[in-house]
């Protein structure tokens, strides 16, 4: 934090290092922060340990909060303090703009490997002509449904949100009449956090209501289509969705769906592997489709998510850390993660790989959903994105919890976003 002090310390460390310096060949310990949604932590551990065995270094895994919002807060504190506790960070697709200062340029270590990955993600991860993170897996919101329940009640997979609402209500009522009184129609992420921004953006975009802020920085959120989308979602709470959905993140929604207590779920692809694991009550009963359209003239829309690996510039062993990041993002490791954990590769050729498609049939059928997902306005809002998203999820949460209707809330949101962006000057 204080350059003078830091320089003094560095000097002292150098002197000390010279005194006790021993020739190389010493193994470094690299810490990596991985998420823990579904089987994520286990996969990360296996991958990192395979790298350790190959390279002779050791790895230490650091547990991080499940909520992206809380994880970002933790990272920001660690990085702002210049802490070297974590060498490799798993960062969200919306963070490169916010955290770029703290990461090293990976180009010297990548040997051009980034060319294999989806170019949109590589571009997203490139800040000031520095590749600050390697794409690890991509994400888009998708719809999970219970094949067995839809079949039993003679329903088809819904094409529009309106159809989903009707189907969910009908199946829920019929099942409850049979005594299955814990069953809900639809679970999703309604807690006031980044996940709600993703869900709400999908509803609004599928209605043709835009993506909050357009590419030129104009705030487009205050429109009738967006308000209609939010009002529709507010109608679910307490009818086809449990009232507690207002405090659900990904894992809470998966908990309800995987115990067999929901007909539909909106979630990321990671939920596929645990839902079909050996001990899952809904094994082989789950289908996956693109999220519904917002009415007949709407479109299917999934929010672009995904995670990258970045190396901290405060790392004591940047070279070993970069080597770990490159190993984990390689095609072989992404293939293993896709097969055992259904994490979407960021390498296009893996979507034609037979083993990957066998484990995740929907990777083929939903390829377009993954490649044309709607992006959150993190590029245009830059360092202010977090504030924009925070206002957006609060405005959405206010509608969902019945405090006000969509139009009122979005009008207020527009004012707040104008404040944040200083009248769209960003």
């Amino acid at each position: 934090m204080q350059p003078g002090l830091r320089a003094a310390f560095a000097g002292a460390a150098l002197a000390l290092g010279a005194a006790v310096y021993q020739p190389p060949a010493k193994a470094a310990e690299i810490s990596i922060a991985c998420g823990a949604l579904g089987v994520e932590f286990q996969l990360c551990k296996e991958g990192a340990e395979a790298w350790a065995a190959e390279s002779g270094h050791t790895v230490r895994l650091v547990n991080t909060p499940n909520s992206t919002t809380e994880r970002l807060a933790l990272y920001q504190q660690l990085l702002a303090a210049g802490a070297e506790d974590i060498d490799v960070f798993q960062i969200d697709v919306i963070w490169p703009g916010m955290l770029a200062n703290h990461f090293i340029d990976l180009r010297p270590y990548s040997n051009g490997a980034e060319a294999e990955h989806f170019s949109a993600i590589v571009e997203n991860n490139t800040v000031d002509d520095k590749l600050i993170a390697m794409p690890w897996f991509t994400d888009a919101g998708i719809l999970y449904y219970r094949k067995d329940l839809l079949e039993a009640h003679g329903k088809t997979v819904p094409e529009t949100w309106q159809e989903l609402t009707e189907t969910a209500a009908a199946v829920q009522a019929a099942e409850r009449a049979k005594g299955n009184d814990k069953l809900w129609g639809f679970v999703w992420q309604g807690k006031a956090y980044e996940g709600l921004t993703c869900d709400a953006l999908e509803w609004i975009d599928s209605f043709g209501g835009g993506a909050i802020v357009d590419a030129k920085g104009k705030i487009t959120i205050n429109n009738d289509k967006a308000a209609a989308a939010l009002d529709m979602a507010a109608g679910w709470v307490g009818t086809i969705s449990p009232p507690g959905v207002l405090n659900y993140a990904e894992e809470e929604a998966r908990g309800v769906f995987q115990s067999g207590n929901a007909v539909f779920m909106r979630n990321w692809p990671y939920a596929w592997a645990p839902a079909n694991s050996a001990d899952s009550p809904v094994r082989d009963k789950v289908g996956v489709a693109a999220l519904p359209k917002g009415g007949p003239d709407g479109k299917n829309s999934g929010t672009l998510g995904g995670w990258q690996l970045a190396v901290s510039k405060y790392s004591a062993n940047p070279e070993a850390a970069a080597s770990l990041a490159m190993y984990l993002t390689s095609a072989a490791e992404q293939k293993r993660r896709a097969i055992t954990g259904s994490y979407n590769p960021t390498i296009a050729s893996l979507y034609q790989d037979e083993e990957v498609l066998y484990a995740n049939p929907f990777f083929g059928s939903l390829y377009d959903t993954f490649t044309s997902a709607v992006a959150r306005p993190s590029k245009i809002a830059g360092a202010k994105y977090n504030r924009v998203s925070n206002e957006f999820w609060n405005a959405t949460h206010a509608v969902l919890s019945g405090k006000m209707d969509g139009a009122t809330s979005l009008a207020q949101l527009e004012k707040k976003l104008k404040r944040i962006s200083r009248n769209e000057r960003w």
Partner: protein
Amino acid sequence: MTQQTLSPTAPAKAKAGGALSLSRSRVRAAWLFLAPMLLVLALVAGWPLARTIFFGFTDADLSDLANYEFIGFANYLEYDEGEWYGLLTDPEWWNAVRNTLVFSAVSVTLETVLGLIIALALNASFPGRGILRAAILIPWAVPTVVSAKMWGWMLHDQFGVLNDMLMGLGILSQPVAWTADPQLAMSAVIMVDVWKTTPFMALLILAGLQMLPSDCYEAARVDGVHPVKVFFKVTLPLIRPAIMVAVIFRLLDALRIFDLIYVLTSNSADTMSMSVYARQQLVDFQSVGYGSAASTLLFMVIAVLTVVYIVAGRVNLGEGGR
């Protein structure tokens, strides 16, 4: 004080020089003994406070703390192209202030009343009193983050034990989302805080009760005064100083509430306190300048309220312990 006690010795004019140097050396010794404490205070309280106030006048950013510019009062209030910006015009800041005041007023009142009742009960002698006194302190001894997380699970709408019990008793017909429902979230937070800090109030008030002279009570008994009247005419006035000091401790604590709210409801606007707001600006939004300005205002709000309380309540902190 040393000089005052020495000066009335009128005939000692000749010795004045000696007395003065004596008093001076005592003053010097006093400063010497105080110095380590003052130094520590300056380091752990003064320096961070000064730094926070200083950052409140800059546009510092968490991602690069070395570079910042001095921007005067712009974090507090600024006029830019026909619009007012800054903390003082931010409705969310005022929402946080209102939440904090509501939380503090309600929770401290409940804790004082409940703490007083518990203290009165524990003041009576009955078998097993020692064990009960220790047991009642348990909620206070559990770290806040742990108890908040524990309550978070107990209040959960799907797996929570509270809903299960209330539904078993037939009070609720369907699960309630205690921490998610905007109408209930603040009440849930207050309930957990009352559960946690009532023992602290009870302990402080009990300490006051234990020091009461027994003769007033004997006199009251001889005169045959009703126990309720004894409580309001004898006990309450006598332990008032202890209660006032206990309340000020709690009030200072409640006004800077952070951990409980953050763990139970994170950044939700329904329960956001001033500290949660400041942290959000500082960490989540990375604006160290704006967040420091919010922290400074938080400090001033607490300072003003404390002064108002001390003046209005005529609290004598010097002998409050009695």
